[in-house]
């Protein structure tokens, strides 16, 4: 049994403690960023760990935003890899979003794969593909239809909408419903501006705009954006998303250490 990581396990996860655990041991991106325009960003999925021996790195999410079309929609391409106890899961999605305050998902395709090297061969791999869409307040999810309270966002498109909000491209975000992973409905979501502050990130002291996010079926999130609107850090409970252009290299190294090469 690995030694308990009692220090990390015994205090709330904050930007300060995240830095102490080594989660911010690199300088934040300095390049120009336009929240309204096409962009591609990758965030590390970082988790508190119960043992000192375990890596905090548990995967990444990469989101690519396409150009705005004449119908005021854009395409988000999402790829999310998570390292789990015994293997890797991957979700890929394409989401056509309306360029509104919450980046409403209008239609989407999603693919889920899980590969677990040590599992019984029969079910070592599972997966599915599905498509869905929003029409009025009705979600069409394969054979199922569900009614949701509008406006609707999704966990991935929300990051896009938040960056426009933080950059001042949009001025407010109304209460909304979250379609988590394009499947799970989480109601009564609210975003609140929590002020501007200085944080230490790598060797830099930078100004960030902070937002809080509370809602059903999740612990609250705190978001930290640079002054161009780029999401640098998001924290909730025991997890963090950290903007890190090198994250896929970190992922490759972690998989190599685990002996799971070839699963990326």
């Amino acid at each position: 049994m690995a030694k308990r990581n009692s220090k990390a396990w015994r205090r709330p996860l904050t930007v300060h403690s995240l830095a102490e655990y080594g989660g911010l041991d690199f300088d934040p991106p300095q390049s120009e960023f336009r929240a309204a325009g096409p962009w591609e960003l990758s965030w590390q999925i970082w988790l508190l760990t119960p043992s000192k021996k375990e890596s905090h790195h548990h995967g990444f999410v990469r989101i690519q935003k396409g150009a705005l079309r004449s119908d005021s929609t854009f395409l988000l391409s999402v790829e999310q890899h998570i390292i789990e106890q015994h293997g890797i899961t991957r979700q890929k999605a394409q989401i056509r979003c309306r360029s509104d305050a919450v980046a409403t998902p209008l239609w989407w395709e999603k693919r889920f794969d899980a590969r677990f090297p040590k599992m019984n061969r029969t079910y070592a791999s599972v997966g599915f593909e599905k498509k869905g869409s929003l029409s009025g307040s009705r979600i069409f999810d394969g054979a199922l239809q569900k009614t949701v309270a509008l406006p609707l966002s999704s966990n991935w498109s929300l990051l896009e909408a938040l960056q426009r909000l933080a950059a001042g491209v949009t001025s407010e975000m109304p209460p909304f419903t979250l379609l988590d992973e394009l499947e799970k409905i989480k109601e009564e979501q609210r975003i609140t501006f929590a002020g501007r502050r200085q944080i230490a990130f790598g060797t830099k002291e930078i100004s960030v705009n902070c937002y809080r996010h509370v809602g059903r079926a999740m612990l609250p999130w705190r978001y930290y954006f640079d002054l161009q609107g780029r999401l640098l850090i998001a924290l909730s409970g025991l997890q963090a998303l950290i903007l890190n252009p090198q994250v896929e290299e970190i992922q490759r190294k972690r998989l190599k250490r685990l002996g799971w090469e070839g699963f990326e």
Partner: protein
Amino acid sequence: MRAKKGISRRTFLDVSLKSGAAFALQPLMHGFAGSAVSESKPNILFIITDQQGLETLSALQNPFVHTPNEDRLKKRGVTFTRSYSVNPVCSPARSSMFTGRMSSETGVVHNGLPIRAGIPNLGQWLAQFGYETVYVGKWHLPDGYATRIPGFKVLPGGIYLRGTVGDRTVSMASEAFLRHYEGKKPFFMVASFLQPHDVCGWIRRNARPLETWPFPEIEAALPPLPPNFDALLKEAKRAKIARMPEWNERNWRYYLWSYYRMVEEADRELGRVLDALEASRFARNTLVIFTSDHGEGRARHRTVLKNFLYEEAVNVPLIVSFPGRVAENKTDERHLVSGADITPTVCDFAGVPAPPNQRGLSLKPILTGKEVPWREFVVSEVMHDYGRMIRTDRFKLIAYRDDPVIQFFDLKADPWETHNLAGETRYAAQLKELVRMLESWEKRLDFAPNALGPFTVRM
């Protein structure tokens, strides 16, 4: 592989399917292939959450939580409100659910132990009767997340102590199975979620007194403290109940609010599995059982966590649905039921005999509307086999080995367990009767070598 800019929908699918042979979809279907599903035997979907006490469903009139999926299940089936964990700790409770035996018999008297050799689990048992037995998620007998479980084919999913992330895969792997299973055999699938167990880590991370609200916008939505918050009773030394003496009222209410968000998180994952079942061809021929291994303190008696015998830790939700065969939208507040009833109930619906020496009873007669003689009491065990609870229709006794502190409650008059009646002579006869029932029950058990043998109450 990195997606290209400006990719079209069709291209996305093509790229997805062609990218990385390791993730190609067709091989994912291996093991699911086959022909028609048996019509004679039902499929069985057993859904477990971790650390979810009763009264954490919005359909059970809790206004501080919203659980539309568990509510949906409640509407479609029978909900037992007098449902008790055999042992309010993860591994022991699960050992009982999967064997129909008491934890003192399975040998799983605390976390991280395997089921005693010679006692079959439900997977092993049903597999020999022609069931496809599949497990997804937390197992904890002994490994939290096992790659191999006797009697089961294991689907991937889960991260130790981090249900908020790992449960997603549990529900998606379950969905994948329900979408693609084409085997000839009926299936018995377990979808075992970790949430709201993450509250354990939350409590540790938030142990310090709160000076201000960390999220001011939730202040109006904070649940109140329970009526028995200040009911601090004399307890047995071995009880070792987790409390947070440094917390102020703000901490306690923030804890309750956060716990309910984790309950909701589990509900949404459960909903994904129910959606997949509903969209599948198995919807009409699948028995669904939903329960939790144990409860959570929820500030009652100023407790957090589990591993003790007050109602908040032992009383858990149990819902059973089966379209056309089990009553819909019915709440059973009469029958005393136990986690040990899962195994005989599953076997009864599957049309197979239950494993020998069952301590549980099949709920099928109750679920199908038959009046049958029923048990007078349920027993729960705890704390490395040192503690016992026995409850009847009205009374409840809590005792620990070699400890003179006995707790005795009249649950009809005092459902919040605020007055210990053990010292009151007017209840001496009822107390004596519960002791007799418990000690008589104990004599029938086949104790594991690492258990402590028949329990006797020190009066």
